[in-house]
């Protein structure tokens, strides 16, 4: 049985577009999607990167939409797109050997509605869908139900590394022989008053209310925090022999992956980037690669003061001369549990197009950030391999390595 894992399908919904192609196009403009958000009006941070064009009822139908929270709707739509892209006809795939792994934080609007009913003294008015419509596990549960996947169904939460963690776990399920196909990704809706107010108390968010579009500025000297976003991405992964046997399109190979934990601080990364560096090295080892084999890094690049500096130091530690770097959060904001999956999908597309999207809003590199960050315009480059990093609260890290077919 081959250990090689192929990416045969991509699906994506972001603030930049309702599918992978439109997201790719917008990301390559290098123009941020953040806007003043009427739902956050009156809060210290009143803007976000909301997927405004995503209207789930038009895609899923109203009878399915009402019973699930937006992060599950996003996951469902991304999964359907990915399945279609991979041509996953059910007659060619054993449903018992199809798994689903979705990164999800369960940052739910439904539970908020339930609390409002309780506070109003109307417990009888709490929707019966509060639990099944909002629990993090249902991101994977509803995707499995929707596509008929009867293999393992897992929702995972490693904060902002959840989407990448899901892809890494999917790789393990395939390499162990547990599954033939796994739909892996992440989904989240961070554009809520609860999230905005709570993250703001951590001083984690940009307060650039006067120019939201320029607020998410990874690695820039004037960065002041991340911007809340939302979205989902799902990748169809399968062992390459399985993909080849059914003549599926192969976008890229998932050559390596690693998970790790800083075990340093609940919210802050290691200042010297040593925790992230360990995970990057572990991913390289899992792929049987040397640092010099990596042609491009899709960085976590959250636009926070601490993370970007720590990540830059990690990359400088591992790579004597770091390859060109980009950070998609400049355009898309930070969609938390979805971000790693979205960036994984964009990394695959970077290899497909042999073009690195620019990092939005980067005028001057911050102190201590000694990286070749692509900015202003896309950069064409011959690339065989690319590495994507994701770092979450709890010190939870995930690193993925993709190679061209």
């Amino acid at each position, binding site marked *: 049985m081959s250990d090689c894992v192929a990416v045969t399908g991509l699906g994506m919904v972001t603030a930049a577009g309702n599918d992978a192609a439109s997201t790719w196009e917008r990301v390559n403009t290098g123009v941020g999607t953040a806007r003043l958000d009427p739902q956050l009006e009156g809060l210290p941070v009143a803007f976000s990167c909301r997927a405004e064009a995503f209207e789930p*009822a038009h895609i899923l*139908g*109203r*009878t399915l*939409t*009402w*019973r699930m929270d937006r992060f599950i709707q996003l996951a469902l739509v991304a999964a359907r797109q990915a399945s279609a892209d991979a041509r996953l006809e059910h007659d060619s795939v054993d449903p018992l050997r199809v798994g689903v792994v979705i990164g999800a934080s369960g940052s739910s609007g439904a539970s908020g509605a339930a609390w409002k*009913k309780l506070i109003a003294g*109307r417990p*009888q*008015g*709490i*929707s*019966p*869908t509060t639990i*099944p419509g909002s629990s993090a596990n249902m991101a994977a549960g509803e995707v499995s139900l929707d596509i008929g996947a009867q293999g393992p169904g897992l929702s995972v939460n490693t904060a902002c590394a959840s989407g990448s963690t899901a892809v890494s776990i999917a790789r393990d399920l395939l390499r162990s022989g547990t599954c033939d196909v796994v739909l892996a990704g992440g989904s989240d809706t961070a554009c809520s008053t609860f999230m905005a107010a709570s993250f703001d108390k951590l001083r984690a968010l940009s307060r650039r209310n006067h120019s939201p579009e320029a607020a998410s500025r990874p690695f820039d000297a004037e960065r002041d925090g991340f911007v809340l976003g939302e979205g989902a991405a799902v990748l169809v992964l399968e062992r390459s022999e399985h993909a080849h046997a059914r003549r599926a399109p192969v976008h890229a190979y998932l050559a390596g992956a690693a998970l790790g934990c800083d075990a340093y601080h609940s919210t802050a990364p290691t200042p010297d980037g040593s925790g992230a560096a360990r995970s990057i090295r572990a991913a390289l080892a899992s792929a049987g690669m040397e640092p010099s084999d990596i042609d491009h890094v899709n960085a976590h690049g959250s636009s926070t003061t601490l993370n970007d500096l720590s990540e830059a130091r990690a990359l400088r530690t591992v790579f004597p001369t770091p390859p060109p770097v980009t950070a998609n959060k400049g355009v898309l904001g930070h969609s938390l549990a979805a971000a790693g999956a979205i960036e994984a999908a964009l990394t695959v597309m970077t290899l497909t197009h042999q073009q690195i999207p620019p990092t939005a809003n980067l005028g001057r590199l911050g102190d201590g950030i000694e990286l070749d960050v692509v900015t202003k315009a896309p950069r064409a480059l011959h690339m065989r391999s690319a590495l994507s990093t994701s770092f979450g609260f709890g010190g939870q890290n995930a690193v993925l390595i993709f190679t061209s077919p």
Partner: protein
Amino acid sequence: MLITTLVEDLGQDPEAVRPDTRLGELEVDSLALLELLTILEDEHHLQMPDDVGAFSNDPTLAEVADYLQSVQGSAAPLADAVKDGAV
């Protein structure tokens, strides 16, 4: 009220919701049924049964309405209502 809730809150097609339509035809499963009963109870102050077993025989909307009407102001257990031919 029943039809309005099915259309406005549960997203049903108005054309498909008629008195002789069965719950199954609308794909109103157990979860959707509980949601329907919750909205009717919370927003329209109707008394709802704890036991929803009476709805397991795929009743028409007219039969649902008749049954809900029958339990208003009554503490009669559902089983009695079924025996009485209310469903």
